[in-house]
């Protein structure tokens, strides 16, 4: 479970990139973070994973505060950033060993998981190569394998479909579903509304740092009394919020 309480973050001390966000993401659900470019999605995910420190508010993962109980909180999630930044001179197998070591994954378990996941994402043949020889998509796949190595309670992904081929994208979506069905939390940001509509149990729409909607696609449709696609609902919501700044009423 991921809990955000009144979280705000500003880079310049003037405008909040994330503005007073309160949100609960439960175990067993896939939660999609949507929003226009620069809305604050990546900042919010970086705050949740401890890459940034919030100016105000608190964030807890499975009850462990990311600032105060950082180590315990970090043990419980895996993060897949939008840009695969890894130690590119390591070989893929060395990177996976490193991840297994720092998360304390048992020897037999890690061997089995590396074997299974690397085959699933189609990188089993290149494990002995340096990561710098990999394409963007291959690096993304490697990070996905690394992220799942310690079987995290929460899986946080920033634009995970970027750079993935259709087969890997399908595998990823299936795995996200399997993870959520196993009672774990999946939180991901995306621009692809079609994916969000099909995969997510609930959505959070963020604009100019503010969370303007939290709920299911059907709840959004019910609000607008409109049966159209998520895309048109999303565009209406963002446009309404910019015009009237009344998004708070949508939040559960």
């Amino acid at each position, binding site marked *: 479970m991921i809990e955000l309480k009144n979280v705000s973050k500003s*880079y*310049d*001390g003037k405008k909040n990139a994330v503005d007073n966000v309160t949100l609960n993401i439960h175990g067993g659900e896939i939660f999609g973070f949507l929003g226009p470019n620069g809305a604050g999605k990546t900042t919010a995910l*970086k705050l949740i*994973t*401890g*890459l*940034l*420190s919030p100016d105000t508010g608190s964030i807890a993962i499975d009850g462990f505060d990311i600032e105060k109980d*950082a*180590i*315990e909180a*970090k*043990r419980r999630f895996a*993060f897949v*950033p939008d*840009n695969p*930044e*890894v*130690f*590119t*001179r*390591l*070989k893929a*197998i*060395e990177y*996976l*060993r*490193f*991840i*297994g*070591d*720092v*998360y*304390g*994954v*048992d*020897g037999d378990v*890690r*061997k089995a998981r*590396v*074997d299974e996941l690397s085959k699933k994402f189609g990188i089993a*043949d290149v*494990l*002995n*190569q*340096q990561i*710098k*020889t990999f394409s963007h998509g291959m690096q993304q796949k490697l990070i996905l394998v690394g992220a799942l190595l310690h079987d995290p309670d929460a899986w946080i992904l920033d634009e995970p479909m970027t750079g993935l081929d259709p087969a890997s994208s399908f595998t990823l979506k299936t795995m996200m579903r399997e993870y959520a069905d196993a009672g774990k939390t999946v939180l991901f940001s995306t621009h692809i509304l079609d994916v969000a509509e099909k995969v997510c149990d609930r959505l959070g729409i963020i604009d100019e740092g503010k969370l303007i909607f939290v709920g299911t696609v059907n709840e959004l449709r019910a609000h607008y009394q409109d049966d159209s696609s998520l895309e048109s609902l999303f565009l209406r919501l963002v446009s309404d919020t910019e015009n009237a700044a009344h998004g708070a009423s949508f939040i559960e």
Partner: protein
Amino acid sequence: MKHFLILMRPLWSEMLANTSRGMGSISSRKKNKDKPRSRASTVLLFTFIIVMFSFYSVMIGIGLTKALMVVGAEDLFIRIIAMAAPIFTLVIGVLQAIPILYHESSLESLLVLPVKPSTITAAKLTQTFVPIFLLTTLLCYPSLIAHGIVSHRPWGYYVQSIPFMLYVTVAPFALTMILVLVMMRYTKLARNKDRFQLITSIVMILLIVSFSLLANMQTNDGIFETGGIFSDPATGALLNRLVKFLPTSAFSAAMLINADRWSTLLHSLVACVLNVVSVWLLLAIADKIYIRGVLGTKGGQSAKQLTAKEAARKLTPRSAYRAIVSKEWILLLRTPAFFTQTIFFVLIFPVIMAVGFAIGFLESPGTSEMGMNTIEYLRFWIMTGDWRHSIWIIALIVGGIATFFSGTALISASAISRQGAAFNISKRIPVPIRTQVLAWLTPGILLMTAIWIIITMALAFFLDMPLSLALIVFVIAIVNSYSMQLLGFLVDMKEPSLAWNNELEAVKNTRAGLVSSLGDFAYIGVSIGLAFLVRKLTSQNDLVVAIVVIAFYVVVAFLMTFLVKKTTRDLFQSIEL
């Protein structure tokens, strides 16, 4: 030309940004997002470096000129510079060109622009040349001016000295680049950029070492008093012959030597034409092979597939500390820029010093009435037990050398910056900060310890040291090495340079590197000052002085440990990505 100038704008900005990023003006700390960093400190550091290099250059210019004037060979100084500048260009060129020219992503972003490939090639070559030229000029030009003043050169000399620097660097640069480009395009060795960069860097550094040892072996005289090897007629003749092999240097030297005659214009013209021809040749060849060469290089080699058994073995669990240390070693050894700038430099530097000193000491004439060479005298001094009365001097010398070595060893001083954007992994793994810090410091401290074990054993062997003296030397060396490693690490953590494009930026010109490699002089100065102050206050009680100096080293080491323990958690937290 218009497109060339347009292209040069971002490339020039990239060049400046790379340097200033290294100096900490673009970094990843939280506070920098609140307000733009003052450029004053960066400008101050640049000024300091320029003044320091200029000072050394001027001192060499004055010293050598005076010495050569005694033997009536002051013109030889101009030939020395005419030879030194191409050598600098060659060495710096080879070390710098590969990362700049073969930075593929930057080139790919230019290739998609509606600009002729030849313009892109010219722009990339200019981007490579400018820093090399500036550094060579910084090393040579002040001494050239100092030489002119000391040897009363005419005004034409100063006017001609400006094109001189261009003439003696452009053509060697062009020839060096042709060699690099041809190798990158046609040799199997260079198909792997990392391997090629590593090998060429090591060869270049070994060449420098060999040259300096050769110079050391040929002279025991102080270069500033007598001109050293350069005042030797045979060496002068050799240099004159060597200069002829570099026509641009030969004509440029003749241009300056004859600055008060009309023939200077003729020499200048020939030098200019030769340079233009070499640039034309470079551009013509580069136009044909550069872009194809870059796009044909690989960042690494494909490796054989792992069997299930091998994969299982390679996934054997370790502690988090060992995993981080192992990752650090792999990155240090596999990244050419990291390896050459940290490990190789650290390994080779003491060897140069040791061999140089050994040769100098063995060949030196009697240093005492007893007719011994320096090494024999030192052995005698140790054997008689007189060293016990001079422990403070031993402490200062060993402490100074250890501080200097450690200050120039940038392993810990680049521990954070080397991670670049991948620092996000360090931030989100569930490993206590203290463990990570210990792991980041381990390679630097281990390497310095290993080096000092070897140095101490070598000294003990050559000088017949008793165990007690060897231990004193080792402990003082380790304590000081440790302090400097921690200092560099702290500064790097405070001002990391994480947003770099090529690895050289992470280890060169960083604030941590500067502070640790320049701060060591201040530290050595303070320890020497303290020793002499205590000596004066205690009426030359050498035992007290020794105790105070060693205590000073230990206190500094404890202080650095305390600072690292106290501040790293907050510093770590405040690095934002």
